[in-house]
Structures are given as C-alpha cells and as structure tokens.
C-alpha cells in the first residue's frame, strides 16, 4: 500500500473528478455576489473568486478537463509515437532516416512556444487541444519504440517466426509490439505528466481551455491579477497540478523499477 500511494492518489483524483457533480459543494458557475473574494472558510474550503464562485467546485470540475486533456493527449502521443517509431525501426533505410530526422527536427523546436503559437492561431476546442498536445509530444515515444523494434527484430524468436512464414503485419502485431509494450508504456506515463503541465501552461497563457469552463491552468491565469489580495486563488489549482504531475511521475518511476527487475 505504502509503495503505491502515488497510484492511489491518482485514482482518488480521477474518481473525484468523475464524481464532481456529487462531490462538489456548489455548481462551478454558481455566482454568489454577496460572498466575493472570500478567504477559505468552512463554507468555502478553498475560498471564492471575484464572482463569488466556489474555488473547490471549480478545482473539481477543472480536474475533469485537466485530467482528460492530460491522459488523452498522452494516448495520442503514444499511439502516433508507436506508429512512427515502429515503422522507422521495422522499415529501416531511407524511411527510418526520414522519420528520425523529422523526430530530431521536432525535438529541436521548443515545445511550449510552438504549442502556444499553434493554439493562438487555431483557437482550439478541448478536443483539438488534445490533438495539438499529442501531436507535439510523440517524439520521445517514437525514439523508444524504434529502439525496441530494432533490437527485437534481430532476436532469434523473430527470425524463427519469419522462417515459419509469418507476414509483416503478423510479425509487428503479434511479436514486436507486445514485447516493446513495457518500455512504451513507461514513456507514455511520463507523457501524461508532461501533457498535464503543457495544458495548464497553455491555459495559463490564455490560449488553452477558455473561460467560463474551468481548467487548473486558466484558474491560475485568472488568479494572476489578484496575487496580493487573494493568494488562495493561485494556491489551490496549482497544488492540484503539482500533485497530479508528481503522482504520475512517481507512478512512472515505480513502473520503470518494476520493468527493470
């Protein structure tokens, strides 16, 4: 139990986000103009914002957006990374060269500024934001998938399968990918943490999730104007971003340790 607390925290966060309508003490957009800018109290655990909205409720509803974007972007990044990396590793030669140069190029462009421009230009919906972050994050998984496929391709059991008449599709689907899975899954876990940070950074700069919908990042964006007088507006959403990224990274570390054992 003690060793898995990161996973437990994550599961609790996801459960709380999913059950937000039941758990949250108020609706996220419920205005209460007689209780604006209140410090944390028993009625409002995390305080209220400039419109009297309950910060706890907004953090819980924001968790739905932030977690969904983080997890789904990592899936997009992982899927495209595996497709690109595995094709490069399997095909070799010119295809490999081309795909890996593209990977190098993408890695050389700073990710956050690139995404900020893309998001500012396209003004994405939440679904499009998932695609954007995913498409900007496939490179790490691609490199790992390629390296795995390269080393697996030379192994005896793959040669044996080929000698027994397995076609290319069968080789990839039945022999290469399942064996590459542990390394790929670990890299996808790291992508989840990174995606959550990217989404919150984009929303923090006002080009990600747009108000009135709450995400942890855009709550911080709105908190920026009242740091001195209402610090709780900045404290709580950030604590959740930090806690989530930390749990994901710790869970990822645990996976690495398990995979190496």
């Amino acid at each position: 139990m003690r060793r898995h607390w990161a996973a437990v925290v994550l599961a609790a966060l996801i459960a709380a986000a999913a059950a937000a309508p039941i758990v949250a003490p108020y609706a996220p957009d419920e205005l209460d103009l007689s209780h604006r800018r209140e410090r944390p109290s028993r009625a409002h655990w995390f305080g209220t914002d400039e419109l009297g909205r309950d910060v706890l409720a907004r953090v819980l509803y924001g968790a739905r957006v932030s977690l969904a974007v983080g997890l789904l972007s990592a899936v997009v990044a992982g899927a495209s990374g595996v497709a690109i990396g595995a094709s490069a590793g399997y095909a070799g030669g010119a295809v490999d060269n081309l795909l890996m140069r593209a990977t190098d190029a993408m890695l050389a462009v700073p990710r956050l500024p690139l995404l900020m421009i893309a998001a500012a230009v396209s003004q994405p919906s939440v679904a499009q934001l998932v695609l954007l972050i995913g498409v900007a994050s496939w490179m790490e998984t691609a490199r790992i998938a390629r390296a795995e496929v390269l080393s697996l391709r030379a192994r005896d059991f793959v040669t044996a399968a080929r000698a027994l008449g397995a076609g290319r599709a069968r080789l990839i689907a039945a022999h290469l990918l399942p064996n590459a899975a542990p390394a790929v899954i670990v890299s996808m876990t790291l992508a989840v943490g990174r995606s959550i940070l990217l989404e919150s950074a984009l929303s923090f700069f006002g080009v990600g999730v747009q108000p009135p919908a709450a995400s942890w990042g855009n709550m911080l964006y709105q908190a920026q104007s009242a740091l001195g007088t209402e610090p709780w507006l900045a404290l709580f959403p950030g604590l959740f971003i930090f806690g989530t990224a930390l749990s994901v990274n710790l869970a990822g570390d645990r996976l690495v340790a398990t995979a190496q054992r």
Partner: protein
Amino acid sequence: MGVYVLRRLLQAIPLLLVISLLVFLLIHAAPGGPLAIYLSNPNVRPEDIERLRRALGLDQPLWRQYLSWLSAFARGDWGYSFSDGRPVAERVLERLPATLELTGVSVVVALLLTFPAGVFAAVLRGRWFDRLTTALAVAGISLPAFWFALMLQIVFAIGLGWFPSSGRTTFGGGDIADRAQHLALPVAVLACLLAAGWSRYLRGSMIETLAQPFVSAARARGIPARQVVLRHALRNALAPIVTIVLLDAALMVSGAVVTESVFAWPGLGSLFTEALARRDYTVLMALLMLTSTTVVALNLVADSAYALLDPRISS
C-alpha cells in the same frame, strides 16, 4: 575527428531545413495566415488588407514565399515587426542581453546544486541523502514553472517584501545589489527546475560509472575514495551531462517564456509572449528559428566535445 565534425555539420543542414519548413507552415498554413488579426478587425478595410498582402508578398504561391523568407532569413534579414514596424533583428538583439544574463546565472546556480546533489546521492545510494535529493528532484520535475513562480512572488515579493516582484532593475536604479535582487526569484525558479532534471541524470550516470571495473581497480590500488570518486568516476560520468546541460541551456533562450513573463523580465521570453498577443508573426518566426538553430548548433558542439573526449565515437 575533423571528418566527423564535418559529417555532423552536413547532417545539421537538412535538419534546419525541416525545422524552417515546420515553423513557416505553422504560421502560413493557419486560417487567415499572418494577417488573421487584421481580418477580424472591423476597422481595417478589405482593400488595405489586400494592399498589405501584396506588399508582404503574401499573394505569392506558398513555396515561393517560403523560399524568399528562408533566403532572407539566412542572410540575416529577419523582416519587420508587425506591431511596431522596427526590424525584427533589432528587437531581438535589444532583448538578448537580459535573457543571456538570466540564463547564464541560472545555469551556474543549477550546476552548483547539481554536482554535490548528484555525486553524493550516487555515492550514498539508498541512504537518507539520496532519498531526500531524489524526492526533491522528482518534485522539481513535476513542478509547474508558472505556479512555482507565482508562489515565490506571493511569499517573497508581496508577503515578505524581500525581493522585487518584477523587472530587471528598479526604475532609474541599476547598481549590482539592485540587479541581484531582481535576479533572485526568476533564477530560483529556473535553477530549481534545471537542477532537478540534471541531478537525476548525473546520479544515474555516476552510479553506472561507479559500478565499472576500472573504478574497482582504482579502489584496489589503494587510491583514496575521494579521489576515486572525483578523478576517476566523475570525469567519466561527465560526458552525458555535458549534452543535456547544453541542450537545456539552448532551450532556455526561449524556454524561459514562462518565468520571464511572470516576473516581467525584459528578455526574449517576454518578447515572445508580447509578440504572440499581437500576432506579430515575423517576430515569432524569428524567435522559433533562433532557438531551434541554437539547439541544433549546441547539439553539434556537444557531439564534437564528446568525440574529442572519447576517440571511439568518431571512428
């Protein structure tokens, strides 16, 4: 060795071409293209937009626009800022010193944290110091830079009043103490984030090296432990760190976007957010190209340094 560097240099050229195409398409393939902000402005007449489009060459086919932009860019002609009409190169150059100052100081502070943390953690593997630094490093990697910056601002600038909350100098001021005070908080953010990643890397690399036979051999010869760690192990563990430090430093040229904008540090990161708010595409493209080119160039430097340190690589 010379041949190796030359070969890597030749590989960098297609890489830069791919990057330039990516950056160009990002902005020109967007709906409305570079003039999108004028299209949505009811005060700008359609004939003015048409005139602008012709003046900027935006009525040309995309490939011709790309080629002329690329050749001008390579010659150092980065065009004019959309927002104030000044040459982009001039705007970038006037912001560069502030970013170099912030990046330089942050990298030095981060290295001062990284070396003791990484080396001792590796030597004392599994003991409390290792567990503490590992925990801090994982926390540092998970820390959202903008939130960390806001918290430091709330506590140390607004609450305690120890440091100014923004800017590079007090207006009109500018002695060493004043500048150091302005540097403190942004450097704290960047140095912590950098050191978190680097120290884990150094720890891993040190643990690997300490397990090598030549280290045991050195120990067996009776060389003092201190010397084995610093002279033998650290020297060999250093090479992978050089690459990651250089790459992170290169990314900071624009990667300090978050920290610079929270602390209103007048460097390239703030220039980027200002340009983004005004859709100042010539500035944005120049900044992205500049950073990417720096990354590729420093990557090349790191690889060459590698080859120089370890002749096996270039052969």
